[in-house]
């Protein structure tokens, strides 16, 4: 079983990959094609990981990076999880290939271009003012301290991340999380307007320069404060802080809100008193689930909620189906549509609907808008809703 590891990728380029410690194992790829079989876009990609590695080894990579085929990779970690050699496909190889693709693309699809430019300029892909990043706090119903104003060290520095800070449904998640943290009596604070995107999706999409800029800026901001651990609502940020920021000196424990809560479930259990009466199916996210194997934690939380019965989709745990939002996918729907790629989130929602559940529970902020969209498109929005695990927990908190 592939395990996620801390990465030193700062000086790594595609050119030097095969000679590097992280890349040398690629020479031992047995060309079995399991990666291609696992890839959700595999049938429609000209250069699956198998072919990519083959061409890289033969010095033929120019042909691959001259086109835009690799924009179809959504960094879902399926190939990485299934590779019998445990090669660093999703986390190392693919971002480096995409980096070269971006450098050569005569035209970057407009939406992706906006998302990347906005992230560079405003610290979020939506292009919203950084000064509005903490606007969600109003309406949280509980105090949400801003670390700069707190003036003292804090136990938990909670990195809310972009979609949870700005996007209306994301804000529902942020407010729910705040209430849960308050109920647990956690000593936490947020960075507020000082917070910027962690940059992992930019990195996976091939924008290494953008990732490195954000990492530097974030490390400088973190460095101003004293905190015991980092917490985040976003699995991509979790990955960035856990595996890629340490090489720049980040040495605090990192957690995602779902496993964080799972570890404290017993403390919260007495307060989970409202009967929800939901049949829930849980979607394992690519990053929290497949990459980090955190499958049990969200299920234990959901099972602890009164009146919640769990039903599994056909593809679950390490076999989960990506929502299509990773690795730049969040901003490439128009591009995929033009190429006739079916929407991955549609496929997943069909599977969710087939379980007869009334709630599709998730742990990643990208999944909410993507699945809600698919529910509408497929006409299932009258019988199923999407909720982040935190929203369900907050709902179950009797007050």
């Amino acid at each position, binding site marked *: 079983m592939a395990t996620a590891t801390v990465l030193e990728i700062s000086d790594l380029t595609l050119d030097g990959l095969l000679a590097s410690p992280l890349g040398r194992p690629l020479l031992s790829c047995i060309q079995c094609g399991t990666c291609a079989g696992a890839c959700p876009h595999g049938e429609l990609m000209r250069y699956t990981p198998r072919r990519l590695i083959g061409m890289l080894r033969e010095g033929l990579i120019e042909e691959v990076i001259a086109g835009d085929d690799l924009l179809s990779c959504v960094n879902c970690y399926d190939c990485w999880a299934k590779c019998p050699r445990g090669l660093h496909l999703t986390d190392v190889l693919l971002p480096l290939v995409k980096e070269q693709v*971006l450098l050569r*693309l005569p035209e970057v699809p407009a939406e992706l271009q906006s998302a990347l430019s906005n992230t560079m300029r405003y610290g979020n892909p939506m292009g919203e003012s950084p000064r509005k990043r903490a606007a969600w706090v109003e309406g949280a119903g509980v105090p949400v301290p801003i670390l700069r104003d707190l003036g003292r060290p804090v136990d938990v520095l909670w990195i809310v991340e972009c979609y949870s800070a700005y996007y209306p449904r994301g804000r529902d998640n942020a407010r729910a999380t705040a209430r849960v943290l308050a109920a647990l009596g956690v000593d936490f604070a947020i960075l507020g307007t000082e917070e910027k995107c962690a940059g992992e999706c930019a990195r996976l999409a091939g924008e*290494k*320069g953008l990732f490195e800029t954000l990492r530097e800026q974030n490390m400088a901001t973190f460095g101003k404060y004293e905190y015991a651990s980092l917490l985040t609502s976003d699995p991509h940020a979790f990955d960035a802080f856990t595996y890629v920021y340490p090489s720049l000196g980040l040495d605090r424990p990192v957690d995602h809100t779902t496993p964080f809560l799972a570890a404290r479930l017993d403390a919260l259990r007495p307060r989970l008193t409202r009967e929800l009466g939901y049949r829930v199916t849980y979607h394992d996210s690519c990053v929290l689930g497949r990459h980090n194997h955190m499958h049990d934690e969200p299920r234990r939380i959901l099972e602890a909620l009164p009146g919640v019965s769990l039903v599994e989709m056909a593809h679950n745990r390490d076999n989960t189906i990506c929502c299509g939002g990773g690795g730049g996918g969040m901003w490439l729907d128009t591009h995929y549509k033009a190429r006739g790629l079916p929407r991955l989130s549609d496929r997943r929602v069909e599977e969710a609907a087939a379980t007869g559940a009334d709630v599709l529970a998730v742990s990643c902020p990208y999944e909410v808008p993507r699945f809600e969209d698919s529910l509408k498109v497929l006409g299932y929005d009258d019988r199923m809703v999407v909720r982040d695990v935190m929203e369900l927990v907050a709902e179950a908190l009797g007050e």
Partner: protein
Amino acid sequence: MKILVLMKMVPDIVEELEVAGDGTSLDQEYLRFIVNERDDYALEQALLLKDRLQAAVIVVAPEAPEVDDVLHTALAKGADRVIRVSGIAATAGTRSTVSALAATLPGIPGVLPADLVLSGCQAIDDLDGFMAPLLAGALDLPYLGLVSRITVDPGAGTAVVAKEYSGGVMGRFEVALPAFLGVQGCEKPPRYVPIAKVRAAMASGGIEVVAAASGPATTPLEVTAMAKPEATGHAEMLEGSVRDVAEKVADILAARGLL
């Protein structure tokens, strides 16, 4: 062939603009600056011509907050030289900036004469004049603005350009070079350049800094007040969830016989 591109920074209206305590200018505390969008199109046009004609592209910008990012980005996109003109007061207005640029450009080695000068034909802060035509006049170059397509025949020393009128009508003009064209649009939106290339441009230095020469003095406009606009009319705001709002609108449409 040599193409000169003039670019400038303008207030970024993504941020909420506030009035300073003096009641006549913008509050600087949270003010950010962004490249004038039309200047970005001018640069894109120049780079397209560079590819097609093997032209050299020189970018000049007056000093302003965040201008170095724009100049490094221009280098990363392929500009051959980028020059920042220091000592131009950002608040003195467009006329003053033009006067300083017109006095400075002739003294920068290798910049003038250029075959083609491009700059955005409008900006959101052009209160006392439009930079491109004023500079064209000061440099004694013929000017045509609202240009959105440019093809150049270097052998003939002419360009054919499309100028926007209204209703989508374009005027095709033949322009004898050297000329100054005020850019409104381009055949494609400004290109993306990966941040790594911009950082590489930053690392290799590359911004030439030139002190502004003094041009003829200009009188700035006397702004006596600045305030957020009072809504001359105001919309009746419809509140509620997206579904609620949609129902309210449907009611309004039905009442007006629009359904």
